[in-house]
Structures are given as structure tokens and as C-alpha cells.
């Protein structure tokens, strides 16, 4: 029995637990009554908890509890409450025109906040978290727009996409001049150098720029314009500026001429709600490149 080890501590007059650690002994002191009662109350409390909340795991489910509380239904309720809270502003956003959204500071803030989330959920995988773009995916921050940078242009591109099979979508593709035997390899090389020369980039020594210019006028000017300034109706990029959708090196340009280009942007009209499309439009416009 433990009692055999009991000894009384001389200083406090209290029994010890009988153990000794490096000369230290532990006194055996009773707990205060309130502590004991609190302990009993917590036991009783836990029984109440079992009754009102989902607690015991069963084979396929668990006990449900009389409160009917469930974390998942609680999330649904929270989301509903959030929708209610935002309802007024969302309605205002749905009713307002794009230009009036931009003119109203409060609505603009709300649209940009909504747009930020929608952009991260839907657009960021291709265009990057801040709309910085990537090779083949346009940078939405700059002032070079394939299909136009006005609010209405951006809205149409978001709603109907590009080359995504939507009737009102952006269409127009770069033909595969090489693969389809329209241009010969030496012509492709020459016109690639000519395209580089349009924005002041250096060309390969000894290249036939005159041939390049002729090939350009005969094949490219239809879409890219006689001076190479591009055409937003067709989504044909401006070749005279410092911005390149794919890359400015000759190899990449020749690849584009050889095989053509025609990147697809999905049409978001059926997938996102009207207020969200408006919010996205405003958000993209306010990256800094939006046109008046």
C-alpha cells in the first residue's frame, strides 16, 4: 500500500506522496472544494454537449444532436447572410452602366473588390495574379490591346471570349503561312526580319529586307495594316510597338508565321453573373491600361 511510504513533512506538518526527487519531496495537499465542484460541473456539461451537438460517430453517420447544428449548414447560412448583406450593392452594380460605375467612387470600390476576387478565381490561371500575362497570354496592365481597351471592348471580350465558338466572340486567326505552303522558307525569314525592323529591332546581316517588305505587303498588310500597326477588328497585334505577345526574337516570329497563331479565350457570358462580368471589366480597366 502507498500508505506505508507516507511520511510527514516536518516543516509543514503535511504528509508527502512518499517519493523523493533529488532531495525534493511532494506534499499531498487537498484541493479546494470549488475546484472539485467545477470539475464535476464540466463532466455534467459534457453530457449536455453530447445531447445537443453532433458527437458520437456511428457506422455511417454520427449522432445529430437536438440543436440540429452542423458546421456545413452553418457555412451555407453564413454565405446566405453575406449575400443578403451585399444584395443592395450587387443590385446597384447590375443596374449601373460601365461608365457610371467608374464615375461613382463607392461603386467603383465595390466593383474592384468584387472584380479582384473573380479575377483570381477565373482569370489568373492564364493572365497571372495581377494580370501580368505570359507568353501567348496578353498582359492586361499595358496599353497595347488586341481587341480594344475601352470598357465596352473589355466587356465584350470577357463576355464572348476570343475564338471560343461564340457568335459575338472575337475572331480572326493568324494563318499558317509556312505549313500551308503559302510562303517559302526564305520569304518567312525575310518577312520575320522585316517585322522586327518595324519596331526598330536589329535584323540579321545580309537579310533581304526588300523581299520582306514585299511579302509583308502581299500577305500580312491585310490584317496587320500597311504600316504594321495592327487591326483590333481582327485581333491583329501592332507590330511597331515594344510589346510582343509571344516574343520578339526571330525564331518565335518565324514559328508564328510558319504555324499561325490563334489562342483561345473562353466566353464567360454564360458562366459568370452579369454583375461579376461588370466588376471584372472595371477591375481589368483599372489595372492602368484602360482606354477612355
Amino acid at each position: 500500500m502507498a500508505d506505508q511510504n507516507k511520511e510527514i513533512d516536518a516543516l509543514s506538518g503535511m504528509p508527502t506522496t512518499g517519493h523523493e526527487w533529488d532531495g525534493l519531496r511532494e506534499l499531498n495537499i487537498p484541493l479546494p472544494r470549488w475546484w472539485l465542484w467545477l470539475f464535476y460541473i464540466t463532466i455534467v456539461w459534457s453530457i449536455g454537449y453530447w445531447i445537443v451537438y453532433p458527437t458520437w460517430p456511428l457506422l455511417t453517420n454520427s449522432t445529430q444532436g437536438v440543436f440540429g447544428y452542423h458546421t456545413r449548414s452553418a457555412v451555407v447560412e453564413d454565405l446566405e447572410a453575406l449575400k443578403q448583406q451585399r444584395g443592395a450593392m450587387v443590385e446597384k452594380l447590375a443596374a449601373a452602366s460601365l461608365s457610371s460605375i467608374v464615375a461613382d467612387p463607392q461603386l467603383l470600390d465595390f466593383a474592384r473588390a468584387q472584380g479582384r476576387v473573380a479575377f483570381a478565381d477565373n482569370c489568373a490561371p492564364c493572365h497571372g495574379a495581377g494580370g501580368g500575362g505570359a507568353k501567348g497570354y496578353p498582359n492586361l496592365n499595358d496599353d497595347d490591346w488586341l481587341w480594344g481597351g475601352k470598357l465596352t471592348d473589355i466587356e465584350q471580350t470577357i463576355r464572348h471570349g476570343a475564338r471560343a465558338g461564340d457568335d459575338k466572340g472575337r475572331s480572326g486567326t493568324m494563318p499558317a503561312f509556312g505549313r500551308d505552303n503559302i510562303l517559302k522558307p526564305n520569304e518567312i525569314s525575310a518577312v520575320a526580319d522585316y517585322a522586327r525592323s518595324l519596331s526598330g529591332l536589329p535584323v540579321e546581316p545580309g537579310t533581304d529586307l526588300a523581299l520582306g517588305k514585299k511579302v509583308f505587303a502581299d500577305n500580312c498588310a491585310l490584317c496587320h495594316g500597311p504600316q504594321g500597326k495592327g487591326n483590333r477588328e481582327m485581333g491583329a497585334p501592332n507590330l511597331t510597338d515594344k510589346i510582343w505577345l509571344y516574343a520578339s526574337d526571330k525564331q518565335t516570329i518565324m514559328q508564328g508565321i510558319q504555324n499561325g497563331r490563334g489562342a483561345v479565350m473562353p466566353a464567360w457570358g454564360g458562366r459568370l453573373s452579369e454583375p461579376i462580368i461588370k466588376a471584372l471589366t472595371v477591375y481589368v480597366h483599372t489595372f492602368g491600361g484602360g482606354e477612355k
Partner: protein
Amino acid sequence: MTAQVRTMSIAQPTPGAPALAHLVAEAEVGGTSPDDDIPLYAPRRKIYPQSVHGTFRNIKWAVLVVTLAIYYLLPFVRWDRGPNAPSQAVLIDFSNRRFYFFFIEIWPQEVYYLTGLLILAAIILFLMNAVAGRIWCGYLCPQTVWTDLFFAIERLVEGDRREHMQRDARKWTAGTYARKGIKHFLWLIVAWWTGGAWVLYFADAPTLVKELATGEAPFVAYVWIGILTFTTYSLAGHMREQVCLYMCPWPRIQAALTDEYALNVTYRYDRGEPRCSVKKAEQLRARGEPAGDCVDCLQCVHVCPTGVDIRGGADLGCIQCGLCIDACDAIMSKLGRPTGLIAYDTDLNIKRRIEGKPVFYKFLRMRTVLYAAIIAVVGGVMLYTLATRDTEGITVIHDRNPMYVRLSDGAMRNGYTIRIVNKRLKYRDFIVTILGLPSTLVDFVGLPPRADGRQLVTVGPDQTKEVRIVVTDYSNTPPAPSTSILFRLIDIDTGETAEVRDHFFGPS
């Protein structure tokens, strides 16, 4: 094996040892345990503190009145801040995230003032302890103040110590029950008022009082009143000295903060021992034998709110309220003996008196000087920062992606989100300029320039405003990978400025 209840203690004499021994003695009397010789709990000895008059009692009354008056009435003090802010002198405005204290308004990001206050409070506690022991426990602690008030009510209704004890010991009559009912009712009124005053610090007090009276106050207000009514009633009415003995960490901490020069409520055993009656003392003294001044009247024990016998020496349960000094002084005066048998003194001095040396008080010690210096430094720093704090501010977040944007003509552009802070209680117009780039164009998204061409940002009273700005560098120099730039905020009316550094990035 049997379950055992254990508490650690080192095998060294501790100030708390006599109290522990006492508890065990009590426990052994009243406890029952099936298979161990230690009871499960220590029964409580009910304490009936006797009323007392004297210097320290008067000090305690004064502290009680002043602290409770501040607590109960402060929310009603008005402070005019103009139309854009509440007019309550002290207000913790959670919904708007502001703390108002007379002329000071604290924003959430300035919570370090609270840290400073907590540091000050801690060091002041240390200093008090180093100078004169448990001043906080004896006079200022809310537990002490409210328990004192509850004792006063108890004595008013149930009578002083002797009367109360006799009534409790006799068979309870209808009158006993009635007295106890009245006492608990009065306690609950005080407790309820305590909770009611608490919630007034978190909302406009007169409005909330009206709402509470008409049942229109927010549910959470009633909940908090309920919680504080319960805690006040149970802590001050029922748990009392047990809070100090079992719950509070401070008595343990301050045992480590005291030293041999700190004044404590001390029984001068050099003068008091051996205890004997007045008659016996005369006989002993007549025979030339030693006789102490203590007549063992137990008045010091009877008036003690925690049931401590101060003559046992320093004690964990002693909150050093000084009431035993008042009780003993009254007895000594009646006996025609000098007062101060129990007094604020040190053990060191008692030993010096026994040895025949003069008493020795030392307030200027390394400990007290350092504490005072820390208080002065922390207080000074807080005052300085409070007096010179800005009422406007600007923070800048550079776009994370893309870090920079090349425009079609080759110019570089960076995007930033700036937040302008206006801590004044009126609308203010600010100009934001960017310095450090040779030739820039700054576009404030959603903020068209005014008719005079100036780009102003208006920030509402006591608000912040977030603006997205895009900065374009049109200089034809090759862009550096990183250029340090300065955002300068200028109040156009007062010229007050705030600045923050950031970077303008280019291709690396």
C-alpha cells in the same frame, strides 16, 4: 492504486507554510476519504471580519469611494469632439475600432500605447511592492475593493462579527432568513450595477441607459451585464479571500519581488512576545522577567478579511490592508501602551532592535531606483510619442504581379495601392507627389484631376482612403532594375506632410 491529489512544494520554509498546515488541520477534522488518509478538498473556514476604525480603515474607505466613483460615473463624463466623433470622454468603440480617452483617440494600429500602459502598470506594481509590500492587494485591487463593499453591506444587514456569528450558530429564525435575503438582494444590486457600468464603456452611456431601461439594448449588453453580475456577486460575495489564496497569481509573483528592506505589515514580536495578560505582565515585570505588549486579544485576527494571524509572520494570505494595525492600535491606546505593535516595518528592523541597534529604513535602493527609472523612461517615451504623433499617414503596397509593365512606346510603368490615413475629425485634402524619378506621369484610378489640374485626394474625417495609382516613367534613360522613390503626402491646408519610401522596378 488510489488517486491522489498532489501539489508541489519544496521542502523549505515558505511564508505560506503556516497557512498550509492550518488547512490540513482543518481538512483532517472535516474530511472523509474512503481509501486514503487525505481528504479530497479542504473545507473553508467562514470568515466574519469585525468592523474597525482607524487610519488605514479611513484610507481604505477613501480609496473605495474614489475608485468606485470613477468606475461607475466615468462613462457619463462628456467630451466635445465635434460632430464627427462620439462625445463620451472614455469610450471603447469596437464597431468603429476606436478608443477614446478624453483628448486622446487611439486607432487599432496604435495599440502599442496599450502595451506601454501595461508595462507601466507592471513596473508600478513592482515599485509599490519594493517600497511597501502588497499596496495593490490591500487597497487598490478590485477584488479587495468590492469585497470590502460587500463586507460593509453584510455588517449593515447581519450585524458585526459577534452578532453575525451568534445568529448563524443558533437555530435560524425567520429573521435570520430575512436578513440573509436582504443581504443577497443588496449584493445582487451592487453586482448588477457593476455589470451595468461595464457595458457603458462600450457605447454611448446615456443612450444605452435609456435602451437598457426600455429593453431595447443589444442582446450582448444584457449578456455582459449578466456575466459581470454573476462574477461580482460570486467573487466579492462568496469566494472572497479564496480568490487571493487560490486563484490569484500575484501573491506568488510578488514574493519573488520583495526584499528585506521592503516595508510590510509586521507584528513586532521583539516588543510583543511573550504574550501575556495585563495583570500577568505587571507581575512578570515586577519580578524583572520579560513580558510582551501583546495581550493575545485576537483583535488583529478578528478584523482580518482573509482570516490571517499576522503574528505568525509573513503569510501568503495576508493582503496587507493594515486593518490589524488599526485594531491593535485601538487596543494599545486603551491599555495606555504605545501604538505600533503591528506596523509597517521590516523583519530586519525587528532583529536590529533585538540586537540593540537603531532601526534602519532604506528606500533608495538599486531596485526602487531602477523601477522608478524604467517608469520615467517608459512614461516619457509614451508621452513623447503621444504628443508628436502624426494626424496623417500614408502606406504604399507595390503591385506584386506584374512588378513592372512595359508600355507600347517602351516606357516603364509600376502600379501601387496607397492608403491615406486622416486622424483628424474633419475632411482633409491631400496632394500625393512621387519623387525620385526624372519624368513621371501619375494616374489616380477613379479620381479625375480637379478643374485647376491638381490631383487631390479627399479623405473623410477619422477615416482612411485606399487609392490605386499607376506611375509611368517617361524618361528615355534605360530603366534601372530598382529605383528608390519617395511618396510624399501633403495636407494642402496645413502643409503637414507624411512620407514613405518604396521602389520603382524595371527589368533586371
